[in-house]
């Protein structure tokens, strides 16, 4: 398809062709036809440039609904002669997101891009279609292509709500209720600040030294256990917001390395910590149906 510039170019070419006809000037014909044939050749070049590009791999680690996630896409150029130039890639139908640029993919080579994606719903879903477009070489025409991988991914709920957990009634609740128990443990190492961390936890001295935001990691004391109970979110009216609040607490517990459990109605997971527990519980939330929480 022609771009805006392409349409203007076509208008100029038509006017010049009319001039050449009017003046019966063969040199003008030469230039006009060179102009037109250069544009025709660029049409083929633009098309071929996009056509050669292939999506090799599309993957993501952890994906959250309504949050900016990063997909890792590997594109390859199977052609052994031509390089691919100036391809703009982004997730289809994401007008607010800036495209990532593949400025060159050499023959027989691959390039990897990190592409931003914000899914709108939790649950099991297919990875999005990627939209690749190119105006190479002269920006007269735009050619595009969609890439789709038949890969399904679990979108975890959005992590949203308050960090502090409500106090639960009962003798053991006091012991379990505080999600930010980490400071009671022993210092283990530093890690990068994450959006679910409270800014007050930033280790400023170390952060200044390394020029990035760091927070301290503590060894969780074995006896610190947190129960994240669906029942504690009754003050939140919308079920999706309740799920988001639970997801935030799980995320917080995971970041602080405490042992935690999730309780929704009759379901309760065993107490544990680590990535497996995190993924298991987040997956539970991602696939949670109304029947399970009502």
């Amino acid at each position, binding site marked *: 398809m022609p771009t805006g*510039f392409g349409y*203007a*170019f076509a208008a*100029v070419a038509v*006017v*010049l062709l009319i*001039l050449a*006809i*009017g*003046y*019966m*000037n*063969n*040199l*003008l*014909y*030469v*230039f*006009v*036809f*060179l*102009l*037109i*044939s*250069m544009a*025709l*050749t*660029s049409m*083929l*070049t633009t098309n*071929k*440039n996009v056509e050669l590009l292939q999506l*090799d791999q599309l993957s993501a680690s952890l994906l959250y609904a309504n949050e900016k996630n990063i997909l890792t896409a590997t594109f*390859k150029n199977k*052609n*052994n*002669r*031509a*390089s691919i*130039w*100036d391809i703009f890639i982004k997730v289809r139908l994401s007008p607010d997101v800036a495209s990532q640029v593949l*400025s*060159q993919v*050499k*023959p*027989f*080579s*691959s390039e990897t891009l990190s592409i931003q994606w914000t899914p709108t719903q939790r649950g099991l879903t297919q990875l999005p279609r990627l939209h690749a477009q190119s105006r*190479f*070489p*002269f*920006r007269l025409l735009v050619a595009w292509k969609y890439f789709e991988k038949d890969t399904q991914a679990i979108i975890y709920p959005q992590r949203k709500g308050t960090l502090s957990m409500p106090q639960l009634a009962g003798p053991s609740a006091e012991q379990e209720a505080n999600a930010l128990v980490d400071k009671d443990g022993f210092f283990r190492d530093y890690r990068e600040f994450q959006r679910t961390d409270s800014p007050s936890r930033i280790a400023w001295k170390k952060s200044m030294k390394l020029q990035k935001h760091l927070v301290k990691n503590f060894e969780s004391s074995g006896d610190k256990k947190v129960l994240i109970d669906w029942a504690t979110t009754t003050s939140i009216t919308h079920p999706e917001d309740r799920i988001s609040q639970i997801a935030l607490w799980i995320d917080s517990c995971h970041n602080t390395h405490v042992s935690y459990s999730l309780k929704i109605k009759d379901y309760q997971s065993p107490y544990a910590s680590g990535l497996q527990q995190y993924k298991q519980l987040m997956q539970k939330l991602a696939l949670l149906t109304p029947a399970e929480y009502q």
Partner: protein
Amino acid sequence: MKKYFFDNPILVISLLLAIGIASTEVSTWISLFAVVMILWKFLSEKKLVRELPKLLAPLLGFFIFLMVYIQYRTLWGQEESTTILLGLAAITIANFSTDRDHQFLVLLGFIIIMIKTIFSIDLIWMGPSMIAFLGLWLSLVTNTRISKFKFIFWHAVKSTPALLLLFFLFPRIVIFQTSKAQKKQAKVGISESLNPGQIGEIAAQSGLAFRAEFVTPIYLSTNELYWRGAVLNLSNNLEWLKGAVDQLPNVRKKFQGQKIQYKIVAEPSSNKIVFTLDALTRIGETNRRIDLYDAGTFRTTAGDDQQLQYLATSILDAPQAVNDDPKNPEQDYLQIPTLPPKTRAWIDQAKAKHKTLQDRLKALQDFFINPKFVYTLSPGRYNDMDEFLFSRYKGFCEHYAASYATMARALGIPARVVIGYQGGLYNTAGGFWKVSQKDAHAWTEIGLSNKWIRVDPTQWVSPLRLNLGGEQFFALSEDDQILFSHTKNWRKDDDLTKYWDVATTIFEDLNYKWTLFLLNYDKETQLSFLKDLSSEWPTAILVIFLIAALIVTLMRRRPTFAGSGLTPISKLMLYIEFKSTQLGIEIKNSTTPINTLGQLENIFEDHNQLISRFKHEYETIVYEEKAGTQPIKKWKKEWSSFFKEKRLKADL
């Protein structure tokens, strides 16, 4: 993001070139305006002056339109529109800040380059026009990694088949004739009157008048070539006018003698004069209408921006009969004005002394064979015949022709002044004569024994001018022109001019062929070409097939040379890296080939032998620059089966 004009040198150079080419056709003020705008932009981008306020752009645009209207009294026309386009380009450059400005300038640049072709189809403009044209395209390519010049070269090459097809097959339809506004300043050339200094002014120019190619094989020297244009009948001493000119029926004249046929391709001119040699018997094969007028002169209906070509036939040494002319020789060719006193006295004395026409002619000739007379392009501004003949003695051809003809008439000999071109520069490469404005000349014809005899007084003053032709003669210094003017054949020669002459001769030949090609490919030629093509259909199919094959081959070429500089072993290495990544091995861009192979050695221990052998081979060929142990094709085969096996395993 704000864009800076001078950050894109290709755009700057191409646009300046396009503006420079077009500015030769318009008034100086617009060129100065463009220079000021570009300079302002340069200084503002260097933060030395403030940016031109955006609000000023429409005001400047209005100023340009106003100036054009004041100068031309219209906005419609070639010069007018070129001036407006140049102004718009200059204003856009001054306000350049976005990608859209860049694109607008590119489109303007294309239009400016193409408008130039309406003014001139001369090959000399093709080089800079093509550079500017391709440069504008190139400026649109933003990728910094691409090899831009190679890219645009190959892009143009790939576009050539389509260009050829379009050029030869696009019907040369004549829907309408674009209105051609009369040029406010006529092109330099011969006109139908003669004032002292007028021919000199033309001869000071270097533009091309016409090219002449003899179809009949004949050797003619420069001093034999008198290209007649207009014949002037009315004398006013040093000034001559054409008088009333009658159009005659185009009758084929009959002369006795050797026929010579020649083709003339004349540059556009506003005066409609057709140039031919003496004793023209036939004129034809012309692209515009040509009519015969009295005194053996011709006029054309070609517009002042159209080139004219025709085939003429003349007879050598066959002077025109005086009574062929509808004018009365006694009345029309003996008319004289009141002569100035010194001239009158000389005439009276000569008349008293010499009774026969022959004696009087001899006396007139002797009068001009006077070493005091100097042939010069810059005799000074005067038009008094006495001053020229008896005190200054400095004149150009028109002074000598005008005074000779007036004096001849005063002596009772019918005479007229002819203006046209004399000589030319023979192009040895193309076998044609290039007649330039420098060859502009005036001479006389006298009526003797019912024949018009050519008499050129310049031959007594500066024979060298007639023998060399204007272009070579005026290439001499003014001192040399005077010093060597009476020499028959002389030319300063050195190696440099020899090489220069060879180069200009070849270029002129190309330029002539180019002009002929552009002029001749019209509707009729196209139809005959297509007719020939259809009658020769097997050849036509073959040609179409070859063009299609050429297009496919060119399109299969990579758009750049990303790997063209690679040796076969480096290409194989690229293949190995690519196939390895397909197997899930991460190979960083920064990893050297040897390290990559080392990495593969560690991963594929079972195929260590192939990898280590190839590693050694790579080192031998690339680093030690020695011959390998086996052909690369064999290596490729080994690696291909290696990856096939690995792929199978991975699938399992």
